């Protein structure tokens, strides 16, 4: 039994060590760096016109992206789960695409098709919406890369939602509208919240695609990540650190909030442990419906 115990401890140390080296140490490094200058410095750094404008822009764009993603993502998830139609398999497979495409390539694609050289681009420009090197481009890029999150978070929950519950509600006299709000939505809420919050956090950090589509115009189209990059290249670690830490803090808070909101009463383990039915990835089109 002792060799077993030893083996257990060895494995545990390996895992913890690896994670610590890879993830914890870097985080500690940046936390240390940002607070050696003191809190005042920190606030100063993020309040410069350029920094604050980058932060506000990023938060705004991420928020808009999240709203759009939530709406269309929910719609897509419902359609993919509930309805059968030709090409469903194709659409469902397509959802995974943003996971597989390099963000830089995403940027190039969007810049290409929505830029001023194409029909679509010029049409949009005439409507007053310019994508390239402008704010809509940022949202578009963020939308592309975060697209799978809501859909993939909702699908398993929708699939598990047994029609029984809805039918029980009907038999008790509830209208489809009431049933939707009082039965379906509460069951589906954790999945929805997860998708939404993950979208926001991912959008906050997006870099590759935005750098291409929106460029690097300070105060106008410079998002936080691009700002940080600029600061690094200009050998200004102080500025880079503060903004980075600020973004990290927001992400952290959002995730903690998510954990709290989606935790069923009495549970102490994180998401994956609870959703042990199927890993998020194992959603096969033909299993749906």
């Amino acid at each position, binding site marked *: 039994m002792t060799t077993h115990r030893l083996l257990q401890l060895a494995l545990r140390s390996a895992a913890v060590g690896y994670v610590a080296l890879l993830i914890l140490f870097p985080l500690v490094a940046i936390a*240390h760096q940002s607070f050696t200058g003191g809190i005042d410095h920190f606030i100063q750094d993020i309040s410069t016109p350029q920094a604050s404008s980058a932060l506000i822009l990023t938060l705004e764009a991420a928020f808009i992206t999240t709203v759009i993603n939530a709406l269309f993502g929910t*719609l897509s998830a419902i359609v993919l789960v509930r309805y059968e139609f030709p090409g469903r398999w194709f659409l469902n497979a397509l959802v995974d695409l943003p996971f597989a495409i390099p963000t830089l390539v995403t940027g190039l694609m969007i810049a290409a098709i929505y830029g001023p050289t194409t029909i679509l681009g010029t049409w949009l420009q005439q409507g007053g919406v310019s994508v390239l090197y402008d704010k809509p481009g940022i949202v578009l890029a963020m939308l592309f890369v975060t697209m799978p999150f809501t859909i993939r978070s909702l699908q398993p929950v929708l699939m598990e939602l047994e029609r029984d519950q809805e039918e029980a509600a009907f038999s008790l006299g509830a209208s489809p509208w009431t049933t939707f709000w009082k039965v379906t939505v509460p069951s589906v809420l954790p999945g929805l919240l997860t998708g939404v919050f993950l979208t926001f956090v991912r959008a906050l950090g997006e870099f590759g695609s935005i750098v291409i589509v929106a460029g690097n115009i300070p105060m106008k189209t410079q998002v936080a990540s691009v700002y940080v990059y600029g600061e690094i290249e200009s050998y200004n670690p102080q500025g880079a650190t503060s903004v980075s830490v600020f973004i990290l803090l927001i992400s952290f808070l959002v995730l903690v909030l998510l954990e709290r909101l989606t935790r069923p009463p009495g549970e102490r383990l994180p998401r994956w442990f609870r959703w042990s039915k199927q890993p998020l990835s194992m959603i096969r089109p033909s299993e749906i419906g």
Partner: protein
Amino acid sequence: MIRRLLISSVWLYFALLLISPILYLAVHSFDEGIAAFWSEVTKPEALHGFLLTIEITAIVLVLNLVFGTITALVLVRQHFIGRTILSGVIDLPFSVSPVIAGFMLILLFGPETILGTFFGTLGVKVLFAMPAMVLATLFATFPFVVRELTPLLQTIGTDAEEAARTLGANEWQVFLKVTLPMLRWGFVYGATLTVARAIGEFGAVLVVSGNILLVTQTATLHIYQSYVDFNYVGANAVALTLLAVSFAILTLLELTKAKAAATVA
């Protein structure tokens, strides 16, 4: 009918957001002809970029498979204080911007730091060289394997492993003959996601590698370089190549899902 309306809306959403950009790039890349495309894709800088990307991806894949498995096993099968913290930390890379990730590595291994000087005296260059690029990519891809394996391990449970023990298998045999085979599809899926992410890694590697031509320029960095140099044909050509690889990966993903679902029944 509402149904028609909803389905069409979803098709439209997908078409606008996903399908048209891809199609456009696919076509647009050949604007100057196939010859131009080909020469861009085969020039030394591009080839070096591909090679470097493949190298880094391979290293990252092996490390993640090994440590990811260990971590998943530890997380699911062992109970210890700090387990919740460990699992929370594992999710972090998903919420950290690549640029910030790269920046953290610079802070950790920079010339004035403990680790930086330590490796410096050993003669090992971390930043602006392979090690840092591997670390940056590791950071970004770490969660994939773990997250695929954990729910799988939970579902499978320990019965089969206990059965193997009653039949005389020692721990190593149990692991090789029972645990690993049952995790097969989790591995394939996690590996596929890892590879996709590793190939596409840009922000962190950009910061950490110094983007030194023909030395530390990966495929994605090469695309960026071309773009910045106004070589749109070049940028698009290599981008399209990577896109094609992404599609291949995506197909593999979907096939895996199909296979996995069939046997998990």
